[in-house]
């Protein structure tokens, strides 16, 4: 069965390593924070100037001066630090953030990503997304395999305005884990109970399938 958002977040949490500095985008990536394995230290970076995002505050500790990049009130963990936007993006652009997780409208088999603009419909701006995708050491996209109309979001070529080119290395969807390789998309894992055929059908671009494709470990 296709994964729900929490299932996708759970699978992505497997990509984390102890000591990682991670930037979580809005949407499914935010949920990943709930599945960090206990005993593992992962430090969350917020591009508006916080290293060490903590959980949402209790009602009586809400602080208007302490928000995340989604403008939600948050807390800061022990050992956190605050800094200005130029230093925050120095961390991102300089490759100090180990992993960036973000959502997308479309990803191409070259690793191009479209995530910020739907002409005539959505023109709110790219925020920090272009900086993140152009700079991060490793970028994983979390998204549904298909859009609301059932059309594949894994394409030969993106149709929407790009956020970045050739930057996505891995995509985790409700159906599969797909890597972007020199030869295009490669199927790495299946969601539990999802067949290779179903994934191929939901993928507009060609999909390399080599040998047995294991199911995701969601333990």
């Amino acid at each position, binding site marked *: 069965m296709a994964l729900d958002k929490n299932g996708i977040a759970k699978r992505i949490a497997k990509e984390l390593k102890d000591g990682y500095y991670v930037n979580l985008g809005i949407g499914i990536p935010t949920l990943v924070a709930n599945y960090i394995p206990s005993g593992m230290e992962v430090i969350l970076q917020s591009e508006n*100037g916080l290293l060490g995002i903590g959980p949402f505050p*209790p009602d009586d500790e809400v602080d208007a001066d302490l*928000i995340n990049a989604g403008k939600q009130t948050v807390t800061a963990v022990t050992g956190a630090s*605050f800094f200005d*936007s*130029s230093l925050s993006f120095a961390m991102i652009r300089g490759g100090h953030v180990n992993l960036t997780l973000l959502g997308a409208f479309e990803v191409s088999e070259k690793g191009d990503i479209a995530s910020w603009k739907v002409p005539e419909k959505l023109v709110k*701006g790219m925020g920090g997304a272009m*900086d993140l995708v152009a700079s991060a050491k490793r970028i994983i996209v979390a998204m549904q395999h298909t859009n609301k109309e059932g059309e594949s979001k894994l394409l030969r070529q993106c149709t929407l305005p790009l956020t970045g080119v050739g930057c996505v290395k891995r995509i985790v969807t409700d159906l599969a884990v797909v890597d972007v390789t020199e030869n295009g998309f490669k199927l790495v894992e299946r969601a539990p109970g999802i067949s290779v055929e179903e994934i191929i059908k939901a993928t507009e671009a060609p999909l390399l399938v080599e040998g047995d494709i294991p199911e995701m470990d969601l333990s």
Partner: protein
Amino acid sequence: MNKVVKDAYEAIRDIGDNATIMVGGFGLCGIPENLLIALSESRVRGLTCISNNAGVDGFGLGKLLNTRQVRKMISSYVGENKEFERQLMAGELEVELIPQGTLAERCRAGGAGIPAFFVPAGYGTEVAEGKEVREFNGKMHLLETALTADFALIKAWKGDTKGNLIFRATANNFNQAMGMAGRITIAEVEELVPAGSLDPNCIHLPGIFVQRIFQGSNYEKKIEFRTVRST
């Protein structure tokens, strides 16, 4: 040499029509509330505003949009504002969208005398149109230029009479870099203290960058998305 002014009205007295202003803040966090109110009550028109966001309807920069004082916005993200969208769609407002990190660095560069620099953000996207592209270390980069402003309107937590500023938590955001880039930088602070009261090791923006300072009042500090955990 006295940098202290009485209030926001005195601080903005010489901002004229068609001025370029930078406005600190991220969303509604760390915005110069008093200065924006004073500006919205002034007759200044045709402003170019460099600000990461455009406020919300009727608050923050939203005030200046409601009064039609803004000709052009230079921002990274301008959601959360219906009047903004209306003016944009109606062609009444010009908007230039810039990746957030590039925006921050362009402000810092403006303050630091660095007229241009290369960044990878935006390569291969519409942001790259008309920009010089160059490869460094096997990766493509765009040449971006510095931003400066006639006035930078910023907000700090504490400030002293020499203009030294300290920000609090994530309310710093763009205030520091924009404070460097204003030809005249005006700082409003929650608490104005005598010189010598702040630890000289912990000054985020040294007074050399700040031309005017005053203690603001009646901070609303609106929250865009109040998110709490159930305890």
